């Protein structure tokens, strides 16, 4: 397929059979579920040590009471209702309750400081805030002076709020109580509510999700019912999710992922959402429930794997050997088996055995025994980690999405899984790549716009309805999958015009445990060069194993043997780059290993440990220059801040290595 021609999502306009399909808002879906699967579990919450379950019929009642209760508090169509707190049933109900009245829920990150909250609450003109507990109440009260629009705060946890002034404070119980009374008192109330539900249309604004803005103020993404519900429905179709799924809701309510996975998809498919007891018990609770459908950012899988390996180190020698034997076997064959590729019988048998002895128990410990679909997204996941879980027989897949798209842009269909792609366009999603390499998409999930921010909306949306993702990527000819290489603005061009995606290259390098940080240069240069940080722990142990003596980080970093080892990694990276038409031109020609660790205290990294490329470029200007003239080493003196805050200067001579680029692979599926 062609890079600049739109790639159509395969299943195109898949026939939608679910009768609930007619329901185009959440309240309608709720009513539908309450009717068709009244007694099936809709939501569970581990509270006070046991799992409390609510059926669809029950939550319908709760939501309706809640909704009517809110109405008596004066919540009206078009009003905004903030939802702040961890994943709890009643906070999810709050959203639907608001939507029942045609009001718009605005979930807000619970860990946001009062300042940020104030901004969102003000900007969204929130009139009612439904919050979890005292902590959140205090936060809001601390800024209530500025929130003229805010009329009521409704809280879930009563504890600690007894002696507060309850003029503007209501407990959810209290509100539901009011609702119940009203419904009991006048028969009209029920029909009035039904009417207001019926009044809701798919085109209406369903929710506003504020994207935690890395740059500047966060933007309020407006999503309509159609956006969310159709995306959710397509998502369900894509993974054949049905009413039997079990999912753990543990990611922030304000994050679009949670809104789709734990709210929209549940309402559409009718499966059960499980709310953990507390953040520290999520793992335990996941095991108890045994989720069938899971979502987590890469770091969670990373931590889990590290934990596993660390623990296994403490195991007895025999067990450890057995473990590694089977894990290696799984790494070799597991994915093939999962992808239904032909596998020799003996390998299958060994895998079976391994499943009894290792994989099964492991999955059991992870609480993933019953997992059918697991997603990782947000950022690139290390191929090793990704393959590890796949090898165990866990159907872990990658997904590429955005708030602006109601999550789904691309995802990996079963059986087509690659560690370094983000899959094919989802059902009903069109994806194209413009000549700058930026990825654009068009889908039913395309957001209505940024709340009260037409300019930004215009920036993001092309007149003909395409949305700029701000990410640069390309379609991998071999697999037809999309590959995301970097933020579009960071992508540059070499002088010969080839695409240069620093992050993409850096990530490839960083997947080697020995390499801690990497900074790639090349924009407006003739070739790509990189500065590397070795990982002291990893390389240190390597040094011990290979009896390489070293006194300091600097010494180890400068050691020729280390250079040789790192050079191997670089060459491998080149090889993998060479396999990709778009990237092949941007292979690494020269690299150096930095004499000191990049450090946030020196302003070289952001507090979130992202490299600040430009800053580094000028700070290490001499080195950068040396990388591009053909000197084999360069001197550098940099000011550093020590742990105790003292400043000092480190001077060093840094060696520079050349690497030969790998031959470019013959291009498959030649562009027409």
């Amino acid at each position: 397929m062609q890079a600049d021609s739109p790639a159509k999502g395969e299943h195109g306009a898949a026939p939608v059979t679910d009768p609930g399909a007619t329901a185009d808002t959440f309240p309608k879906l709720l009513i539908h579920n309450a009717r068709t699967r009244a007694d099936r579990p809709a939501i569970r919450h581990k509270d006070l040590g046991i799992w409390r379950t609510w059926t669809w019929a029950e939550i319908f009642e709760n939501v309706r009471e809640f909704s009517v209760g809110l109405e008596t508090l004066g919540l009206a169509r078009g009003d905004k209702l903030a939802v702040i707190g961890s994943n709890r049933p009643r906070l999810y109900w709050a959203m639907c309750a608001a939507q029942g009245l045609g009001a718009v829920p605005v979930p807000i990150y619970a860990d946001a400081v009062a300042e940020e909250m104030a901004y969102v609450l003000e900007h969204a003109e929130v009139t009612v805030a439904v919050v979890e507990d005292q902590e959140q109440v205090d936060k809001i009260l601390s800024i209530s002076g500025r929130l003229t629009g805010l009329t009521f705060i409704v809280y879930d946890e009563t504890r600690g709020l007894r002696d507060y002034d309850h003029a503007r404070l209501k407990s959810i119980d209290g509100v539901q109580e009011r609702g119940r009374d009203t419904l009991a008192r006048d028969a009209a109330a029920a029909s009035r509510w039904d009417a207001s539900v019926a009044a809701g249309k798919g085109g209406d604004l369903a929710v506003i999700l504020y994207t935690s803005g890395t740059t500047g103020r966060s933007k309020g993404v407006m999503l309509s019912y159609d956006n969310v519900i159709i995306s959710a429905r397509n998502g369900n179709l894509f993974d054949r999710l049905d009413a039997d799924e079990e999912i753990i809701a543990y990611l922030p309510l304000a994050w679009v992922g949670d809104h789709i996975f734990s709210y929209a998809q549940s309402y559409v498919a009718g499966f059960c959402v499980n709310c953990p007891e507390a953040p520290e018990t999520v793992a335990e609770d996941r095991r108890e429930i045994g989720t069938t459908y899971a979502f987590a950012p890469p770091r969670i899988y990373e931590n889990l794997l590290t934990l596993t390996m660390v623990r296994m180190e403490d195991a007895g020698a025999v067990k450890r050997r057995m473990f590694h034997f089977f894990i290696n076997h799984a790494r070799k064959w597991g994915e093939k088996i999962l992808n239904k590729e032909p596998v020799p019988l003996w390998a299958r048998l060994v895998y079976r055995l391994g499943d009894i002895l290792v994989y099964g128990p492991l999955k059991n410990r992870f609480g993933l025994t019953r997992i059918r679909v697991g997603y990782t997204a947000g950022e690139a996941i290390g191929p090793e980690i990704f393959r590890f879980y796949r090898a165990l027989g866990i159907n872990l897949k990658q997904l590429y999405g955005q708030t602006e798209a109601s999550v789904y842009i691309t995802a990996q269909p079963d059986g087509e899984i690659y560690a370094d792609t983000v899959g094919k366009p989802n059902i009903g999603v069109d994806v194209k790549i413009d000549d700058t390499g930026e990825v654009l998409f068009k889908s039913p999930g395309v957001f209505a716009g940024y709340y009260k921010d037409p300019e930004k909306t215009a920036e993001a949306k092309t007149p003909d309805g395409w949305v700029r993702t701000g990410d640069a990527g390309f379609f991998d000819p071999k697999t037809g999958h999309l590959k995301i290489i970097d933020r579009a603005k960071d992508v540059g061009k070499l002088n010969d015009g080839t695409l240069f995606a620093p992050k993409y290259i850096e990530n490839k390098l960083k997947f080697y445990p020995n390499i801690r940080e990497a900074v790639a240069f090349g924009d407006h240069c003739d070739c790509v060069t990189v500065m590397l940080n070795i990982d002291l722990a990893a390389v240190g142990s390597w040094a011990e194993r290979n009896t390489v003596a070293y006194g300091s980080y600097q010494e180890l970093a400068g050691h020729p043997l280390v250079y040789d080892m790192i050079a191997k990694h670089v060459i491998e990276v080149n090889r993998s780059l060479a396999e990709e038409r778009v990237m092949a031109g941007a292979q690494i020609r020269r690299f150096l290993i930095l004499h000191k660790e990049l450090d946030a205290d020196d302003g070289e990294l952001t507090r979130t440990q992202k490299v600040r490329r430009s800053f580094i470029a000028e700070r290490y200007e001499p080195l950068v220059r040396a990388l591009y003239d053909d000197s084999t080493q360069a001197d550098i003196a940099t000011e550093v801040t020590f742990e105790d805050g003292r400043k000092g200067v480190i001077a060093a001579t840094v060696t520079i290595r050349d690497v030969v680029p790998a031959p470019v692979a013959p291009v498959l599926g030649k562009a027409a």
Partner: protein
Amino acid sequence: MLYREAGQYKTSYQADQAVFPLLQDRVGLLVILFVAYVVIPLTGNDFLINAVMTPFLIFSLAAIGLNLLTGYTGLLSLGSGAFMGVGAYACYKLTTYFPDVNIIIWIVASGFVAALVGAIFGLPSLRIKGFYLAIATLAAQFFLEWSFTRVAWLYNHNVSGAIEVPQRTLFGVPITGPNATAETRYLIVLTIVVGMTWVASNIVHGRIGRMWMAVRDMDIAAELMGIRLLPTKLLAFAVSSFYCGVAGAMMVFLWYGGAESTVFSINQSFTILFMIIIGGLGSLLGAYLGAALIFVLPIVLRFVPPKLGIPVHAATVEHITFMIVGALIIFFLIVEPHGLARLWQIGKQKLRVWPFPY
């Protein structure tokens, strides 16, 4: 490894408080019961049933009794043998006076007599702990043992000075006396033991169990929390003696078919004590494991060597048994003070966290 807990979640406190919260355990239990109730009676020969299973169960019950006192409440007793005796003689007297009342009722009822006596001899536990109390219980042991021989009324003035078990029937089927088949007696013993084990586990998992363990772990704190020490300890003595009593009654009526006081000597007390030390203090399972080990050991010693062509004298077997038991006790106290039960637990835990070491 065998344990796949993912997906086993509890939606009620009842379920969460259950004695066997894990599905795999419940299944295992059912299998065991099936074997005990169906497989063994059908396939087992007389020797297995009469000389191994029946006594094993009876000893297990006695061990449970002592474990409630020593393992759960932390009160060391050397009188359990005598309390078994009380049960036996009580049952004998009751059934002689009321021959028409079903013997099984008397077997259980005799427990109450034992409980009463136990409670009386438990009185000192208010003031004294540890081996002081142990010595106090010795008083019970010797005094009762003495009365079994000296008070002729207890054994109906039989010239033999022993209890002679009369024939009693259930639905016309003889269940005691010479005509009762091994299977019948086994099944009755089994049922009583299973039932009483269930009761015991209910008690130790509830308020009373917690009170006992509180007294065991930190009696001062327990009292400061409103637990009255004397009633709690006496209750432990009573319940414990009840179990020993029933065990004693069954021992005479459903196993020996007759006995004299020597059966309830201090050595019996020691045997029971060793069962729980080796099996595991503060564990019902431990009582079974301990009983199995201590009781089955000599049998193995007696019957295995000849199979291997090594002739051993019965006496020698006994002596060797003594030595092994002694050694085992020391071994367990050193290696695993919580006995076989803890080993089992550890094993189970290992299976649960498999492949992880913890």
